[in-house]
């Protein structure tokens, strides 16, 4: 009989067995991977820094007058931190939305939040508010405003209809994109800036961007307290009600969390695709769909993937940069296909 019981995990990935033993081994492993990626990203670039040098710079803290120190603390560190936070936020938002919509094709951008944020940013660029915090503020306002609109559309008798929400999100997404296109044509001299923003980048991100990105931390932490509810919701809303979950309250909390994470991520980095779609799937294949492992591991894996993608984007054809969204796709797609072929099923 015990043979029979083991067949379920016999072919599973090693991380999956770790997840069975408890979630911590898996989390610590991916955390170590993240630390490695961050070190790599801090070390590599036009001026490479040795691990020993990085250690010295870390201990020294930001000091004026030293070129290495300036590169490390003023250029690389904020850029890497923003990339890590954005990657983590998108991955967490992806997990939440995929499991809430029970739809594997969902990414953080289906709610229309990203398009709203893009619209806000585009307006900022068209009004030449580019280098002010105004642009970020406009992007956040655009993203959250869209979330509110979609929310109102999907509300019926005090309940949020997930299906309507998805459709409304996609519709508003298209609408916002159409407006962005019109603005791009109108503001032809700024077209380049708009296109560049839309493609997403961490180029030139500084500590003020880190501060905005840090706001995502409590929103990434919040869902960690609702992993049981999220597990139960995989059985559908009705079953969750039957098992005692306050479904509407949980849904509201999760939707707002995912919306805010997406809006913040997009506002500091533009629209970077693929991470929010693929990281949750990859992690699900490795640790299974239980959220106690899925959420923290996705968070760390999203951060790792984005840091590596940004590293590649600025080093492959240095001194030029490839848009980071292109890199995430190039790195993520083959990895995803490989895991799909190897794993038995996506979900």
């Amino acid at each position, binding site marked *: *009989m015990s043979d*029979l*019981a*083991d*067949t*379920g*995990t016999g072919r599973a990935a090693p991380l999956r067995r770790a997840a*069975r033993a408890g979630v911590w081994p898996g989390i610590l492993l991916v955390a170590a991977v993240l630390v490695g990626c961050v070190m790599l990203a801090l070390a590599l670039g036009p001026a490479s820094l040795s691990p020993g040098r990085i250690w010295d710079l870390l201990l020294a803290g930001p000091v004026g007058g030293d070129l290495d120190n300036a590169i490390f603390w003023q250029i690389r560190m904020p850029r890497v931190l923003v990339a890590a936070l954005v990657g983590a936020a998108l991955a967490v938002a992806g997990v939440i939305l995929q499991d809430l919509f*029970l739809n594997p094709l969902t990414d953080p951008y289906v709610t229309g939040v990203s398009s709203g944020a893009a619209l806000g940013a585009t307006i900022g660029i068209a009004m030449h508010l580019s280098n002010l915090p105004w642009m970020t503020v406009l992007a956040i306002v655009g993203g959250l405003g869209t979330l509110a609109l979609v929310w109102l559309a999907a509300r019926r008798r005090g309940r949020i209809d997930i299906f309507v929400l998805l459709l409304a999100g996609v519709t508003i997404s298209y609408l916002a994109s159409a407006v962005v296109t019109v603005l791009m044509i109108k503001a032809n001299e700024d077209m380049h800036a708009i296109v560049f923003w839309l493609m997403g980048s961490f180029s030139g991100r500084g500590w003020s961007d880190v501060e905005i990105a840090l706001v995502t931390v409590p929103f990434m932490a919040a869902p960690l307290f609702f992993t*049981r*509810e999220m*597990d*139960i919701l*995989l*059985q559908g809303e*009705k*079953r969750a*009600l*039957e*098992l*005692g*979950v*306050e*479904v509407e309250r949980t849904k509201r909390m999760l939707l707002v969390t995912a919306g805010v994470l997406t809006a913040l991520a997009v506002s500091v980095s533009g629209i970077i695709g693929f991470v929010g779609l693929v990281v949750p799937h990859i992690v*699900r294949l490795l640790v*299974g*769909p*239980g959220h106690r492992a899925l959420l923290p591991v996705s968070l760390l894996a999203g951060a790792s993937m984005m840091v590596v993608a940004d590293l590649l984007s600025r080093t492959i054809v240095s001194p030029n940069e490839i848009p980071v969204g292109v890199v995430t796709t190039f790195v993520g797609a083959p990895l995803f296909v490989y895991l799909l072929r190897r794993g*038995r*099923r996506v*979900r």
Partner: protein
Amino acid sequence: MTVDDKRPTAAGQSGEPLVALRGVDFAYDERPVLRRIGFELRPGDFTGIVGPNGSGKSTLVDLVDGILQPTSGEVLVRGRRTDRYRRRDMAREVALVPQHFDLDFDLAVREVVEMGSYCRGKDAASCGDPEQMLARLGIADLAGRRFSELSGGEKQLVVLAQALMQQAPLLLLDEPASALDVSHQLRLFDLLKELNADGLTVLCILHDLNLALHYFDKLLVLSDGEVAAFGPPDDVLRPEVVEAVYGVRAYLHRHAGRTYLTFSPRLRGERRGRVHLVCGGGTGAGMMRELVDAGYEVTAGVLNALDTDEETGDELGLRMAVEAPFTPIGDAAHAENLELMHAADLVVVSAVPVSHGNARNIDAARDALRSGIPVWADEGVCVNDFAGVTGALAEDGARFFAGEEELLAAVRGRSFGDGRASAPGAAAGQATGPKDGPPGAAG
């Protein structure tokens, strides 16, 4: 078993019902689904809900669980209205095993079962052990399997385990047997019976009226959104109730000390004709049922009381000429039999053994032949003819068929009385003869 922890110390403790519905109406948007529903469940009740598809059974169960709220009237669980409960508190009182349950995600059975203890909070001690629960249901070996790999029957038991983890005193089940084979069905209901003996109150929707009859202490019959009957199964599942609710004819049979229901489709409109059966000893029971189902008015005789065919005819409500048990056919029964035969459009003789005790039935059939009523007989009747009378039947013009199947096929192939020729005759062109013309099958 942890379920009885929540059990009230005595069943009739305060006389307070566990669940009470009072004047409950429910409508989806404007479409009314349930009307004037009122009933109570007491601790320890083992109640089944039956009713046709669309009669509102699942809706009723969702109302009890507080997932739906009545448009008027009130649903009380332990004396408190269901809309006054937080979901977690409700889940501690009422557990539900849904009809459809699917999970596309790759969770282990253990994890799925464990979700049931959500309403018990984070304290492991009060949550119960998923492995123990699976062992209780006899499926301990499934714990490490993936839920998505299980068979339909295994899934059903796992979901039951999940619901039992709630340790609620009331268990609702929505057609738990629909995906199960007969052995799993019986196992499930035996299990529910056991849990009930441990103090669990059970309210279960099911479709199989015979299972309902055998397992449940009380049945609630829903018909078109209203309670058609509520009470002990024998009172509730009377053939006339079943006919009224389901629109089929129902027959009660007693066999090996149990009562069974069988069903026939209700006829649409006119009768197809009247057939008189000469049979006995079980040789005619099958034909009786077939002919009744096919829409013929069936009479039979002479049969001895307590004969298998007589009992079947009685269950089917047929008019019969009956003689006392183990008694040769007397004058009165013979006369009644002749009367029935002469009112028939066709006399059918089964492969009944003929002896001096029932030889008068063959005489009666010959009498019918002389009056112009066709007599069709199973060849088998000549095999066990200990009275030597069937030869005369053939001489008088009875038509013989090789067995019951052919006989029935021939009967179905033509219509009687003033009915038009039916399909086989029509297919053969205008060759259809008069009323007693050649039957479709070869003699």
